[in-house]
């Protein structure tokens, strides 16, 4: 926790606000999402490579937001936000990963799809 301040506008979380940083956050996220959109519209990559590339661009956009929008760093005013986020990230991965894994197993064993419907369908994370 940061020290006490009599002037609320002198608080480190107020002082950390920066127009350049926010504009950089906007531009970097829009550029990364634009690149992901181009990859999506071209439809010329195998599904697995496409997911990895678009997922990587999204991860970069999220990192850009964490540093440029939220201003997460290891300063005394921000360190506990960073620590709590790092401790929570595995929960996100476990929640989505285990759920998809469980239902993928269930899907393969019980949800037998007619061959024609399976052939016509687009791949998803469960397939």
């Amino acid at each position, binding site marked *: 926790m940061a020290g006490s*301040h009599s002037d*609320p506008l002198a608080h480190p979380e107020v002082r950390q606000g920066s127009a350049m940083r926010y504009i950089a956050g906007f531009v970097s996220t829009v550029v990364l999402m634009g690149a992901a959109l181009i990859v999506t519209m071209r439809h010329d990559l195998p599904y697995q490579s496409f997911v990895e590339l678009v997922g990587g661009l999204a991860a970069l956009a999220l990192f850009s937001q964490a540093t440029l929008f939220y201003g997460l760093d290891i300063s005394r005013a921000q360190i506990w936000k960073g620590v709590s986020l790092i401790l929570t990230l595995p929960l996100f991965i476990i929640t989505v990963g285990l759920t998809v894994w469980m239902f993928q197993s269930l*899907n393969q064993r019980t949800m037998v799809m007619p061959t024609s419907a399976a052939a016509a369908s687009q791949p998803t994370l469960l397939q």
Partner: protein
Amino acid sequence: MANETAPTANTQLFRPGYHGHNQISARTLGFWLYMLSDALLFTALFASYAVLDTPMNAAGGPVASQIVNPIEGFWQTIAVLGSVTCYSLATVAMKNGKRGGTAVGIIAAIVLALVFLAFGVNDLATLAAHGDGMDRSGYLSAYFVLILTHAIHMGVGILWMLVMLVQIPLFGFNDMVVARMLNLRMFWQFQATIWVCLYVYVYMIGA
């Protein structure tokens, strides 16, 4: 530690106004922890969406590639990121003690948020009008719930901004108002973070 008294049933974890606490830091850290739990709510919805995003769960109804438009989603991305940037710039004006600049930034953020919501509501209303509402299939239920949960968060953020537009001229930049402005900044930036995940997973990978 030797000077501290033993905790009792009346021990207060946090006492508003006690100068030994930093009021703003305590509030922003508490709100950050709330946001992480809110993020887990979205994680559960994304997990449900991943499970229900199959032709089997579409039950003969439309699948993602038939209802999402990545190009329209990109305009929504620009709108929500623009809104977040405008609100963040409003807090820069607050840093400089400028009430007018803060209000202008908040109003711009509200306008862009309404543009974002208009796109989303139009999409969902069009689907429902064609008989593909949230009760049509398991997939559409997951889709509607994911989009609507984010939209409701956006609505709450707009309401919060309207409250701040009233509180800033009423109370000035005192401890409470500044803490609320900082919490709203985190909350609003969080909406952009969720949208990036939603856009990439639903609108791009699903397209």
